[in-house]
């Protein structure tokens, strides 16, 4: 937890200090961790990218999407299709042949080329988010209704993907990859590369989100969160902004999925379902909604916790996770980062007095 104490000393650079330290820690991690742990951490970094997107839409704009697994899954499937075709080396993917299919379906063909696959991994989520977002936000479906609607969306996608075994691999999903860009996925150097690429992508995603937040767009988003009608009456069209931010967050989810697949080696429809989607939101809730650092910290910390506890207590780990969720949501509505800021504020105001408090109000509450 030293990053926060350091953050105190350099008051001016404080805003960037946290992320710099996070990235530094992530960069150094491979020197201290085993290959397995590094690989695992790479997966969590991918989740952190996704969490940034959820934070944008939920923390800053106040829209709770419980269907982000779909966008994550679409990104992951696009990448997986490329990896599978490369692994097949021109032959039909194994699940197609045992499902009785003789030829490659037309929509699989372009995915043989990596650039197209990566492009689709970002584009497909954006397009679907655009369609869904435009319709629902234009019709002013808000709050809980939107959340439940996105749940229905995620069920639809899961059932569709499970049902089309010969096209999507069914419940098994797509697995058994061999190479990425002709580098062996079993090779630890490739894995290390993938890890650093994820960290770099995380940094880029962070800068991008920070950019949006600091622009006027960001303030309009917060205005929409805090009073949609007031924003509307001030002459902004909330629909446009909401659709925009929903698409951005879908793209980030797709990106996260695309970098997740080569590191984990499998994507299955279950990852698009409601349970993972809710978990994604919980990461942000625990880290601290409305704070980009919070989203990253939440995603990495919660997943570390999940892996760690489930290894220590394989039979009863759900208890710990469940209790942690309940406690954080009830007692720390602004998450760990929010709680730390409060703590800091308290200590700081004891030392410096009231003048210090004004400089601290960068984290919005709910």
């Amino acid at each position, binding site marked *: 937890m030293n990053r926060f104490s350091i953050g105190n000393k350099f008051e001016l650079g404080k805003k960037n200090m946290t992320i710099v330290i996070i990235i530094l820690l992530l960069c150094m991690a491979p020197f201290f961790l085993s290959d397995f742990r590094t690989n695992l951490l790479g997966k969590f970094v991918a989740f952190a990218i996704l969490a940034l997107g959820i934070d944008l839409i939920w923390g800053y704009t106040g829209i709770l999407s419980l269907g982000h697994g779909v966008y994550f899954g679409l990104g992951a499937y696009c990448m997986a299709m490329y990896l599978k075709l490369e692994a097949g080396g021109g032959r039909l993917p194994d699940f197609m042949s045992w499902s009785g299919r003789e030829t490659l379906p037309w929509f699989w063909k372009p995915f043989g080329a990596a650039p197209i696959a990566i492009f689709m991994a970002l584009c497909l989520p954006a397009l679907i988010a655009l369609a869904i977002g435009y319709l629902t936000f234009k019709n002013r479906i808000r709050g809980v209704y939107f959340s439940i609607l996105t749940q229905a969306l995620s069920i639809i996608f899961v059932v569709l993907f*499970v049902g089309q075994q010969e096209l999507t691999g069914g*419940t098994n999903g797509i697995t058994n990859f061999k190479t990425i860009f002709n580098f062996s996925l079993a090779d630890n150097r490739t894995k290390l590369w993938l890890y650093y690429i994820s960290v770099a992508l995380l940094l880029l995603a962070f800068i991008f989100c920070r950019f949006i937040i600091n622009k006027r767009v960001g303030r309009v988003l917060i205005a929409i969160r805090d009073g949609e009608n007031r924003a509307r009456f001030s002459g902004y069209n909330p629909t446009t902004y909401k659709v925009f931010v929903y698409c951005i967050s879908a793209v980030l989810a797709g990106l996260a999925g695309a970098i997740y697949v080569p590191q984990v080696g499998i994507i299955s429809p279950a990852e698009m379902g409601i349970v993972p989607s809710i978990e994604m939101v919980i990461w942000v809730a625990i880290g601290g909604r409305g704070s980009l650092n919070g989203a990253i910290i939440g995603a990495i910390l919660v997943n*570390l916790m999940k892996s760690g506890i489930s290894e220590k207590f394989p039979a009863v780990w759900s208890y710990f996770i469940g209790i942690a969720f309940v406690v954080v949501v009830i007692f720390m509505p602004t998450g760990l980062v929010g709680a730390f800021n409060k703590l800091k504020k308290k200590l700081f105001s004891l030392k410096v007095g009231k003048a210090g408090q004004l400089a601290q109000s960068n984290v919005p509450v709910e």
Partner: protein
Amino acid sequence: MKKKWLALGLSISIALSALLGGCGSSSTSGSGDSSSAQQAAGDTIKVGILHSLSGTMAISEVSVKDAEMMAIEEINASGGVLGKKIEPVIEDGASDWPKFAEKAKKLLQNDKVATVFGCWTSASRKAVLPVFEENNGLLWYPVQYEGMESSPNIFYSGAAPNQQIVPAVEWLLQNKGKKFFLLGSDYVFPRTANKIIKAQLAAQGGELIAEEYTPLGHTDYSTIVNKIKAAKPDVVFNTLNGDSNVAFFKELKASGITAKDLTTCSVSVAEEEIRGIGADNMVGHLVSWNYYQTTDTPENKTFVEKYKAKYGADRVTDDPIEAAYINVYLWAEAVKKAGSTEVAKVKEAAKGLEFKAPEGTVKIEGENQHIWKPVRIGEVQPDGLIKEIWSTAESVKPDPYLKSYDWAKGLSN
């Protein structure tokens, strides 16, 4: 206010302890039911146990884990292998396939286990398969499955299609009728199994009436039963997954259809599942497996006794439980024969290995690492056990790709 700080402190300490735990180099089994965990690390051989202990698949997999733990304890009690005790490292796959892959990696790379016993669903096996092949690990898989697979790093002790589905269909065609209704959950095993069955029906004069799939976790079978009624099949071949069977058989009974009116044959319903379905809902219906709790061998008698003594008189044994149990013994025998736990040596030693299992003498087929097993068709009794009504004269050779059947030519490319 105070509460908030308390809560904060609590969650941070949880997180920290998890971090430490997560990054620690080794973690042994946390649950109290392993007596061997206290052994010093040097005198033990670590093996992984990887099943879903939470999530939807926990229904079936927890019992399988119990059987494996029992076998490990028995082997330890009789001196272990190579003079060392076996130390199980338990991991929860949580019914989530990527989680299975993660935990398999952890077991092989971090814990450096000698072998892993685990998985239930085909999906979880497919998810860990590349992990085992990359790391040259060894997985012992205990459940009947759809075939079309033979990884050099997996031993399959459940039935291949030719040891369960194919003989069952043949028997049904001869004894029950030609018109088949195929009902299954929407996932890989039923779809592949039905593909095989359709080819077999076409070759052996059967008739396919309809083929229906329901999503996993489907809870209402009134419409399906109605479709069955309208279709009037001779046989419903049932490949539904565990949970859905309950709703299906309760619905059949509520609609007034008993085993006398309609023959059903299930391949995913064993004694354990019948407990959840309720024996009175399933009396007289047929199942096809390689082992039943009632199987009459001396080995089975002691096996059932020991299992009940350990886990409670109300528990039952069934085919996957037995297969998981013999997996541990087969591995231990192979290790003894090889004099080493090295994967390549164990695999070599396992070829042709014979073992007196509760289901009868089984033999590992070296060519595809499946097991020679007898096939048994059984009928559910009012007490929830299964009575064998037909069995093959001797063990059937495993043939995961159905190469020895002419009609299956197009299936395995």
